[in-house]
Structures are given as structure tokens and as C-alpha cells.
């Protein structure tokens, strides 16, 4: 564990402009991408064009498959009803089908499938003591690779607070059902649910 000597490194942070202080002052009108002045000098130097980003959206209740999958294959596809609003981006879209998460096909649905969404592994059944996703989520693998190009390597966001309690009915802590990003098999990443605080 870091000791109080690490407090010395804090001096540096306090002397650079606090991103949040400025963004707060600028009011709600500011949106992503970050102002260049806010980036560390390393990131600024490396940046020629906007860095490539990865976004993952977890939709717990799924989608209507009959209204999701486009018709046709290759370039000449016809967008489905759900995806129709993306028509103007069709030249930049690839919509794969037939993806299958085998390892989440066991155990109690909610917990295994949520936590295993991006790890493609089966979680260990636990009330917390031996919590283990048995894998690193793919977004974190990506963050390890390209995270240095942006001020924050990754952002984990959510809409609802973490579900309370443990589920003694099936033997899982509800921590499993509330986290999709795992930086290590034993470390789920905490999520920010307040959009104002994200800035």
C-alpha cells in the first residue's frame, strides 16, 4: 500500500489546473471532448487527430431481436426499425450477428450474464468472500492498450445505484449484477451514476 510519502505527489496535482474546477465554472454548456488545455502534456503531444475510443453499452433487458437485426448482408443492408435513426452513419456501421457468450450460459441468469458480459467467463458463485469474474473485461484490456491517449484511461458509468444486499436464494452477492467492467478478476470497477459529477 502507498504510504504518506505518496502525499508528496499530490503537490503536483494541486498545482496544475483542476479540470473539474474549470469545467464547473464554464457551466453545463461544455461537453466532450475535453478542452485541450486540460490534457496532460504527454497526451497533447501524442494527439494528432481525435483518439479512437471504445464505448460499450449494456442493455440488461436486451433488444427486440426481430426489430434489431438488419436485412441483408455486406454493404447493401437495410437498417431495422430500432436502428433506423443511424441511417446517416450507415457507411461507418458494421452490425455483426451470431455473437454468442458461451460461458455465461450457466448458473443463475442475472449475475452470471451481467458480470460475464465483457469477460466471456463464468463468475464464481460467492456472497463476496471469493468474488471472482475469472477474467478481465475486454474494455479494460483495450484501456491498457490505448488508455494513455486520453486523460482518463476508462470511464465506468451507470444509471442506477448498486443493488443492495446479497442474494441468499441463489448464493451470489448483488455486486455481480451491478458491474460489467473488471480490471482484474477480483476487482470490479466502481461506476459513477451522477452525470454532473462525471464532469
Amino acid at each position, binding site marked *: 500500500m502507498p504510504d*504518506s510519502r505518496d502525499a508528496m505527489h499530490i503537490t503536483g496535482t*494541486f498545482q496544475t489546473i483542476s479540470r473539474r474546477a474549470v469545467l464547473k465554472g464554464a457551466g453545463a454548456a461544455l461537453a466532450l471532448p475535453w478542452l485541450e488545455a486540460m490534457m496532460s502534456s504527454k497526451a497533447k503531444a501524442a494527439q494528432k487527430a481525435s483518439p479512437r475510443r471504445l464505448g460499450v453499452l449494456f442493455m440488461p433487458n436486451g433488444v427486440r431481436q426481430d426489430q434489431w437485426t438488419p436485412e441483408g448482408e455486406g454493404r447493401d443492408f437495410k437498417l431495422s426499425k430500432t436502428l433506423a435513426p443511424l441511417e446517416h452513419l450507415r457507411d461507418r456501421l458494421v452490425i455483426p450477428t451470431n455473437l454468442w457468450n458461451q460461458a455465461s450460459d450457466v448458473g*443463475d441468469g442475472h449475475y452470471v450474464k451481467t458480470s460475464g458480459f465483457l469477460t466471456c467467463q463464468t463468475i464464481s458463485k460467492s456472497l*463476496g*468472500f471469493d468474488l471472482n469474474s475469472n477474467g478481465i473485461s475486454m474494455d479494460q484490456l483495450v484501456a491498457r492498450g490505448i488508455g494513455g491517449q486520453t486523460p482518463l484511461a476508462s470511464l465506468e458509468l451507470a444509471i442506477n445505484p448498486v443493488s443492495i444486499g446479497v442474494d*441468499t*436464494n441463489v*448464493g451470489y*452477492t448483488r455486486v455481480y449484477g451491478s458491474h460489467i467492467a473488471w*480490471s482484474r478478476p477480483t476487482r470490479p470497477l466502481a461506476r459513477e451514476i451522477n452525470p454532473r459529477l462525471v464532469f
Partner: protein
Amino acid sequence: MCPLRVNDSRNQLGWLSHAFHMLCLSFGTSHAQDLALIEGVAFVQHYCVECHQPPKPKGKLDLSAFTSPEHFIADALAWDRHLHRVRDAEMPPDDEDVPLPSTEERLAFVRWVETTLREAACADGVQPGPPLVRRLNRNEYSASVRHLLDVHFDAGEALPDEGAGGEGFDNAAETLFISPIHAEKYLEAARSVVKYAFADPRSSAHFLIAQPDDATSPLQAASRVLERFLPRAFRRPVKSQEAQSYMELFEEAYASGSGFSGAMQLTLSAVLVSPKFLFISEVPVGSDASVPLTDHELATRLAYFLWGAPPDDVLMGLAERQSLHDLDVLRGEVDRMLKDPHARKVRSVAQTFVEQWLGTRALGREFKPDVSIKGYDSELEGGMKYEPVFFFHEILTENRSLLDLIDADYTYMNRRLSRHYKVKGEFREQPKRVDIADNPHRGGLLGMAAVLAVSSHAHRTSPVLRGKWILETLLGEPPPPPPPNVPLLEESHGKIQPQSLRERLERHREDPSCAACHDRIDPLGFSLEHYDVLGRWRDEVAGLAVDARATLPDGTRFEGPAELKEVLMDRKDQIMRHLTRKMLGFALSRGLTHEDFCAVETILDDLKAHDYASRRLLLGIVESVPFRYKSGSNKTIAK
């Protein structure tokens, strides 16, 4: 998947082994204990060994050697996992050629293994758990900052919220992770709260006990401030090298032109992001033996248990004088901590514990009634939410009987809740104590709207959810999960002959594979059918009279909540045992191990001998071995 029975000789051996055990039974063994021993082993031999034996044991699990309880005891950790699979009917798998135990056999086997493991764990006396190392949770962080800086804002407001683990609480060490986001948030919070505290003269008087003046240099002033601040922040005496690093930070900041205030703010912010503040960490034990906690470690555990906040100056003083291991002093402290100037802290612990134990924290979050349910608003929600909190707070602070949780002649209502319950009287927005001795519909947890709501669906009541709630929350016997592929319950709309909920749930009773569990679950919930989704009393549902009759598998018949409470009173020891377990888990901030269950039994015996007075539960926990000692070995034992 288990292979078909190809090898006949092996098959015969399996049956012979079972026959042998049956022979033992028929010869009559000397006492019940032996019968029980044989039963558990026979289960494994009959249902498991077929697949789980050499040459290629399934899942690489060889159970052929399990011929005595000692084998189970030696492999306790693994058996905790196997037990879950047996209980949840995952094992043996539902293949045509594999004999399947009935639900009764499964549950009996699980009970046998658990009893065997717990008795073995207690045979050598109670073992404590390992030294505690865990991050403060959000609420504890806020309370700790408030204690240090005397500020009246919630420093932890921006921290991410936490999930629960262990016995189901968000202070469980096993699920208090730290993510990169925490580092950002702690830095941000430290800066804001320190800045705020410096600007507020009342707060700063609390910790800024020295300022530079004619007689005092800035360095001397800083040193005096830290001398007081650091031990209170780290909840223990601080070595001079530790203080020195913070002095060096102050000097560097001061030298760079920050001024005394700026440099002091930076230094104190640094203390607030130190792991020594953010984590409760107990010193590891050098040897294999278990040792008592240090006085400061005990003071810390005690304070976060009863207050959710750091030890105050009195506790720290006692710790300094090494008096806390004197049981009389410890008992005196428990009494003091539950008394008046600390009421707010005790109430916040009552809230934290009760909301998570009962699941009522879900009110307004995971549970929101459907728009078709009239009368729900934020004042009602507040009244509903705080009723069990104020109630439990009184039980703890006034040393009431814990049996009040099952049935009581008082509760707490605000104005909106009193109207909701149709109770006459003068009420305000703040909940107040109400005598309900003559009220046949209220009394104890099962008359409380919050409990009745979180054990319902959003649009209608569910006897299954309420039965499950009682089994899980009060009795500590959670039912196994339903099998996959259970079809949807048909809703009643549009049918010519309206069916009552009971009729629609008839399948639970007709189908024996459903009845095995539902005969235990549904009756408990049916007896509460007079309460709607929000806990209002009703005599009719959709034009049909409420039928609140119930029959348990053992033949016990009852009707309505008053008789349900009598049935639960008959099982009060089981309920008290489960509550003890929950409170011990909350106090230890981890899940319980087999060893801890010995402590549960000791505490329960004492509780029974004192008419279930709540103070005995708290004292029992605080005086227990797991609470006051830490183990030496690195091996952590799971439950």
C-alpha cells in the same frame, strides 16, 4: 454429464454399499448421533459417488473416499461449495439414469453437513477471524471526516456507492473494492472539505488548534496541529517518522509561497487521502496463535459497529490507558455509547443495519409501486422508510426485548403514515412513537408498510415473495431457487370467472415437484394477504374476500397476521439465532465462518437467559472472541 451405467459391476458395488449402510441402520445404532452420521455419508455414497469416483471422476472431484464425517471436516472449504449445488438442485444433475434425491433429502443432507462442520469448528473452542483490513465505506468516510473537521456536509456524497457482501451489508470487507475512480474522488473530496472547514470558524476552531503568532513559528503551529490531528485521523498513536513526512510536505508547500493556511490545507488534505485514514487495518499477528486486538483496534471496531464513526476522545483515552480489555470497562462503554449525546450516530447505524437486513433500503430505489397503486408520495415513502428505523433504534437504546420485532404494542408513524394506517391522533412530519396495543392490524415488523411493500411486486401482492421474505430474513432458511422454465403465472384480467391469487397459484400445490418448496413458502405469504402492496389493510381483493388461511407442511394451521405472529413466536429461537448471526456479521464487517457459529450459539444462550433484551445481544457480540481477537494464521476460512 454422467455416463450411462455401462459398468455393471461398479453399479452393483454402489448398491451394495448402500445396502450395507441400510443394514447398519436396521441393526439399530446406539444413539441418534450415529444415525445422523451414517445418513450424510450414505447420501454421498448413493447419489454422488456413481460419477465422482476413479478412474475418471466427473469435474475431477473424487468423493469415493467420503466414508466418515472426518472426511467432510477435512475438506470443509470445498464442502461449502458442494452444499450450494446440492441445495440448489444443480447436483446431482437431472439426467434420466441418475437417481435424484427428493427436496427433503437434499435439505436434510445440507443440514447434516453444516451441523457436522460447525460442531467440528467449535470442538477446539472459538477461533477468531484474521486481522481486519478494509476500506471505510461511503457513510463511514463521511462520518469520519465529520468527526475530524466538525463540518456539516456529507464529504462522501460524490463517492461511488457500494454493493454488499458477507452477511448482506455494505461494510463487508470482501466487497469493499477500490477503483481508480476512488483515487480521484478521495482527492477531490479532501480538497473541498478541508477548504470548507478552514473557511468556517466553528469547524476550524475544532482542529486548527495553533496558528503562527509572535510566540509560535509556522512550523511549530503546524506541528501542534498535526500532533492532535494525526492520531485522531489514524485512530491510533502515530510514530514520529509518520508525523515527519507530513511536516516535510507542509514545509515544502510553505516554502513555495502557499502561506500558512494554504500549506496547512494541503497537508491536512494529504492526511485525508492516506490509506491509514481510509482503511481500517489491524496489525498482522506474527505467530500462529490468536491474540487480543490492541486497545486501539478494539476501540475502532466498537465505534464503527455502534456509531458507524471513529472512536471519540473518551474511547481513545481508554485505549491509551489500555483499559478496554477490562470487560467491565467495555460494558460500560457500550452503555455510554448508546446514550443521548450519541443518539444521531446510533440512529444512523440502526438505519444502516435495519434497511439492509430487512431490504427496506430498496424502497424508492429497486422498489417503486406501479402507477395503478394509489396514494404513494414522498411523504408516505419517508414515513414508511423510517418506521422500522425509529422502531429498531428504540429497541437498541431503550433495551427492549428483541421479540418486539415479531410483535410489539408500539411503533413510529409520521402524519402521512398514520393516515395510511387509519390511526387517529396528532402527528407531524417527523415520526413519533405510537401506542398500538389495541390495533389488531399493526405490531412488529410484519405490520410495517415498508416490509410489506418490498416483499410485493410493483402492481400486486405476492404470497411467494412475502413467504420468501419471512424464510430468508426472519428464519434464516432461504428457499432454493426455482427450477428454470417455470411458466408465467396467468393474469386474471379478461377471464369470465375471476380467480383469486390463491387459485392461480394452485399449481404450486398440485405439482409435487413445486410443492416441495412452495408448501413451505406460500402459506406464510397467504396469511399476509390482508395487506395490499403498500401495506394497507383490506378485506377484499378484486371483488373476492381475502382468504388468509394457511397450513404449513407440519400441519400447523393459522389465519391472518396475528396468528402468523404466534407461529413465529413458537420459532423465536430460530429467529433470534438468525438475527444474532446478522448482527455479528455486521459487527465483524465480514461474512461468518464456521468458527463464528460457536460464538452465535453462546450469544444466543445468554440472550435467552435474559429474556431477549437487546443490550445482551450487543454485549454478547462485543464480548465475543471473534470481536475481540484476531487469528495468527494467514489462511482465511470461508463460509
